[in-house]
């Protein structure tokens, strides 16, 4: 039982270190800058927890000291088998106390008047710092190790520890912000409870009016819903068209169609909107041609739902394509062949067998399109004009002149209800209906080609749409080299020079306006990527391989966070992390946390898919050979998951670069991200630089993804000369 004692010693030592050495409260310049060390003796704010409690007289920390001391006492007096229950108690009590203490004492004393009446005054406190955070983790691990010593989950301390930490992280970075947002809706400016804001907003005709049915203007909620239904319908149909062309026709350029699927990954979300304005806006190229040729006045028709819809169709059709190609491909050819041998021609087979088998997949693509459209922020921001959608309304409710957090919270809740309903529909309603068309038995046979009367229209539509997409992207690359779009089409490098200028006089100087945000973006994306991959894959491993109570709920909650629109995350992070006990706004950490927990579900999905291909007996074999869970993970699971790990790394890196909706709430002067900066340029009408900067971002991401494809070798686990290649685990849907 030595290992029981050893791991407990390690975390107890960490706990003592946190209490004795690390500053208990938040250090303004940042803990890792180490600037604070010189001032630590003289400045009370920087004292570690022990001194805060004993000398500075913060009695709210005494229970923390007591609980840690009790844990040390248990370690020295009791054997591992006898102390498990007590350790669990201490760990949970410690966490609970930190929660209560942190939430109830704010910057200027008690947060709630009731407490002040009971206990009298208390000195205000800063947000949690290094000491408090480390100690909180230590308490969580004490509870986990206690459970391990009692034999929970076969006594596996590694698994229990990992679960505890993950649950803690998800609670802090997903649920706490959402709860803060909901409570924020019920607070007025000085923080006391009021229903005024909610009441006035919930009946606001600007949100809920159905007047458009009778010729007026509808509320923003219905407009957003209507747009989402249109986008979802359109992208599903287009996705199906592309999927059919790619798998069921003799179309000669099928392979290159697959390139389309990469586009939404590498394109910052507002770029398509931007390109559309250049093409179809008031002074857009196409607009001018049409006006010249016909003499009509086209005007501003693009701005509004129509324009947003076109942009979303361009943006999300590839996602739907990616979902549906799996569905269309997954239909076992033997079903279609069986139908043909039963006297049905290709058209009847398609109508009676293939299409019905695809139906659940189509519904799935529809719901994904619905959620994506609801959550989209970049395109409505650029193309919304006067009539926005929910996500942009939320943004303007906090940043604009309104500055009405209650309204933002109500709008965010409405948006959340829409997307979560779609998500729940997808999970609950569709999960039971998926036809297991991939049987696992080796099906010989080939997919039947489409009947001719379907094939030709389908190919025509696909080619037309592909050409439109190419035109739009060509606009983006070309637009950066044109002086003033629509007015002066002379070629210039001026935009690139202004954005990415380098001066060599007197040493290398990054003089371009874009460099600052560019390097910040790279730095933060690089830091977020490994964390996202680690958290995502660890979660995937726990979900697939471990059986623990609440596993299904845990998985469900994680996947649900995928359906939370970025705008909602942004607003909830601001409301949660602006004040103690956790104060992170304006730091790089909040951006990283946002990326990690926003992109983690993708890592989880990729990991789950990859893990499902690994026989579970591999883990068990490793365990029975005497390797613990940690070693099993390191030596067996991770090496076999290399492609999934790299995919998760690249994906989270790229998503961190292209994301805008949550980021725009969280950037600060010190940490500005590329996308937020570009949106700022667009708002100032500096289209040239914005386009130039976007093209550079797209090129960077193409390089990264291309490099990744080269880097990922096949896992060398099969003889190279035969057998199908292991399907690389690159789940990029949704």
């Amino acid at each position: 039982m030595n290992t029981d004692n050893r791991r407990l010693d390690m975390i107890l030592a960490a706990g003592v270190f946190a209490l004795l050495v690390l500053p208990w409260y938040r250090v303004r310049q940042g803990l890792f800058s180490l600037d604070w060390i010189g001032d630590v003796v003289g400045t009370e704010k920087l004292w570690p927890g022990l001194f805060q409690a004993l000398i500075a007289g913060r009695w709210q920390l005494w229970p923390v000291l007591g609980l840690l001391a009790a844990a040390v006492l248990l370690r020295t007096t009791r054997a591992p088998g006898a102390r498990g229950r007590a350790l669990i108690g201490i760990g949970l009590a410690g966490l609970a106390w930190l929660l209560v203490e942190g939430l109830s004492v704010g910057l200027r004393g008690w947060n709630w008047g009731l407490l002040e009446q009971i206990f009298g005054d208390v000195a205000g406190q800063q947000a949690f710092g290094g000491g408090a955070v480390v100690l909180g983790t230590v308490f969580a691990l004490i509870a986990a190790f206690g459970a391990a010593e009692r034999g929970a989950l076969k006594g596996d301390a590694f698994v229990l520890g990992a679960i505890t930490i993950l649950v803690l992280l998800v609670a802090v970075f997903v649920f706490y912000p959402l709860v803060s947002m909901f409570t924020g809706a019920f607070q007025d400016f000085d923080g006391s409870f009021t229903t005024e804001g909610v009441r006035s907003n919930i009946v606001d005709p600007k949100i809920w009016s159905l007047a458009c049915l009778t010729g007026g203007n509808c509320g923003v909620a219905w407009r957003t819903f209507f747009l989402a239904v249109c986008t979802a319908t359109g992208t599903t149909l287009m996705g199906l068209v592309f999927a059919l062309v790619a798998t069921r026709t003799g179309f000669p350029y099928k392979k290159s169609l697959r390139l389309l699927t990469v586009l939404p990954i590498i394109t910052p979300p507002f770029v398509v909107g931007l390109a559309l304005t250049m093409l179809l806006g008031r002074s857009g190229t196409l607009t001018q041609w049409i006006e010249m040729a016909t003499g009509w006045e086209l005007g501003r028709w693009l701005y509004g739902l129509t324009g947003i819809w076109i942009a979303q169709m361009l943006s999300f059709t590839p996602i739907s394509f990616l979902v549906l190609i799996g569905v269309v491909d997954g239909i076992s050819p033997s079903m279609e062949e069986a139908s043909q041998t039963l006297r049905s021609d290709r058209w009847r087979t398609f109508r009676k067998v293939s299409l019905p088998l695809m139906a659940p997949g189509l519904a799935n693509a529809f719901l994904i399109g619905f959620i994506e459209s609801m959550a989209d922020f970049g395109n409505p921001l650029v193309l919304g004009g006067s009539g926005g959608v929910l996500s942009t309304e939320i943004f303007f409710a906090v940043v604009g002149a309104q500055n009405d957090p209650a309204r933002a919270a109500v709008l965010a809740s409405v948006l959340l209800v829409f997307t979560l309903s779609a998500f729940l529909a997808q999970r609950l309603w569709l999960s039971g209906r998926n036809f297991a068309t991939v049987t696992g038995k080796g099906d010989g046979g080939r997919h039947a080609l489409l009947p001719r009367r379907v094939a030709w229209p389908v190919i025509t539509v696909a080619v037309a749409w592909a050409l439109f997409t190419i035109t739009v992207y060509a606009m983006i690359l070309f637009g950066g080299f044109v002086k003033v779009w629509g007015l002066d089409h002379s070629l210039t490098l001026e935009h690139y020079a202004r954005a990415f200028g380098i001066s060599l006089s007197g040493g290398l100087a990054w003089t371009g306006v874009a460099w600052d945000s560019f390097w910040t973006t790279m730095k933060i994306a690089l830091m977020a990527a490994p964390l996202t991959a680690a958290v995502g894959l660890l979660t995937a491993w726990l979900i697939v391989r471990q059986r623990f109570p609440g596993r299904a709920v845990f998985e469900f909650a994680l996947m649900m966070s995928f359906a939370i629109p970025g705008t909602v995350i942004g607003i909830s992070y601001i409301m949660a992390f602006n004040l103690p006990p956790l104060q992170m706004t304006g730091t790089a950490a909040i951006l990283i946390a946002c990326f990690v927990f926003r992109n983690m579900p993708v890592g989880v999905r990729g990991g789950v898919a990859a893990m499902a291909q690994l026989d579970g007996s591999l883990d068990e074999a490793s365990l029975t050979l005497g390797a613990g869970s940690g070693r099993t993970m390191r030596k067996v699971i991770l090496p076999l998951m290399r492609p999934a790990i790299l995919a998760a790394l690249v994906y989270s890196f790229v998503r961190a670069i292209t994301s805008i909706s949550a980021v725009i709430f969280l950037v600060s002067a010190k940490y500005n991200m590329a996308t937020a900066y570009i949106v700022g340029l667009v708002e100032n009408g500096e289209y040239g630089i914005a386009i130039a900067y976007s093209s550079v971002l797209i090129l960077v991401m193409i390089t990264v993804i291309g490099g990744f494809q080269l880097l990922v070798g096949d896992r060398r686990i099969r003889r190279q000369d035969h057998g199908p290649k292991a399907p690389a685990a690159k789940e990029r849907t949704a």
Partner: protein
Amino acid sequence: MTQARGAVEFRNVRKTFGQFTAIPDLSLTIEPGELVTLLGPSGCGKTTTLRMLAGLETPTAGQILIGGQDVTRLPADRRDVSMVFQSYALFPHMSVAQNVAYGLEAGRMKPAEARERAAEALSMVGLGGLGGRLPAELSGGQQQRVAVARALVLEPQVLLLDEPLSNLDARLRRKVRTEIRELQQRLGFTAVYVTHDQEEALAVSDRIVVMRDGLVAQVGSPRALYQSPASEFIADFIGEANVVAGQVLSVEGDVAQVDVGGQVLSLPARGMRPGPARLSLRANAARVRTEGAGVAGTVASSAYLGDHVEYEIDGPLGRVFVVDDNSDVPLAVGTGVVLELRARGLALIPGDA
């Protein structure tokens, strides 16, 4: 006695999965150096039992002892057992030698020594020169032997084998099971072997534990199970016996006179008293004749299999499945025959008829 290295004991072990009870109450002792087979149809709880012994499942109640030590709550990686998996579970990214050395290195053995021991283990199973290959570059039988070597190199108190032959073709299966048995006899380790194939169980085991619905149906040597099945289930499961009705006429000491379809035979009494009884009738217990004394019947179906013929015979015993070695002149369906019963292939089944 159970303190000895390699001894295994289940004490009132119970295992439930949610609402489903896989093992209601299992008590079982395995002696050191014994090869015990857990045999039963799928879903009978044999694999669950093995996995609880390995530490891959935790019993809901009860105790498991290995070498006298209570290991009920001990995680798999700290138990002195190792396991050969049905799928072999060879790590596909490691060479054969790395696979075999894996457990040694996890036990903090120096890499050089681990490599040496791994090479020894590989030559023990006859794969001396193949350490550098990847598992995928070996044949099924070779992979199986790597899995055995990987488990044995740790010199565990107990070796667990979970349907180790099910991924091999029929001919290889016979060869490999002989090899496993030889290795076990030579090195003298305790082994627990799970299979659903009764022939395999009969061939390799010192003792067989037949399980059904989570309960132990019968424990005994292969001979005892075959010759004196404790129930119709055992009679049917081990060697596909016919279960027929008979009449115990008289009992004298351990010997009973039994009337089977009109023929009277002397059989071990097995505690039965005069009266109606049920018997297991092996397929080779009856000779099929066209004339003479015995139980009359007609051929309902016949299948010619080269060195023998399989018949189904309708008669006073119901439909009986028999095998006849005389394959020169197969009898046609509808032929009237006489079954001449032999005491060797017949056994009374204890309990009420």
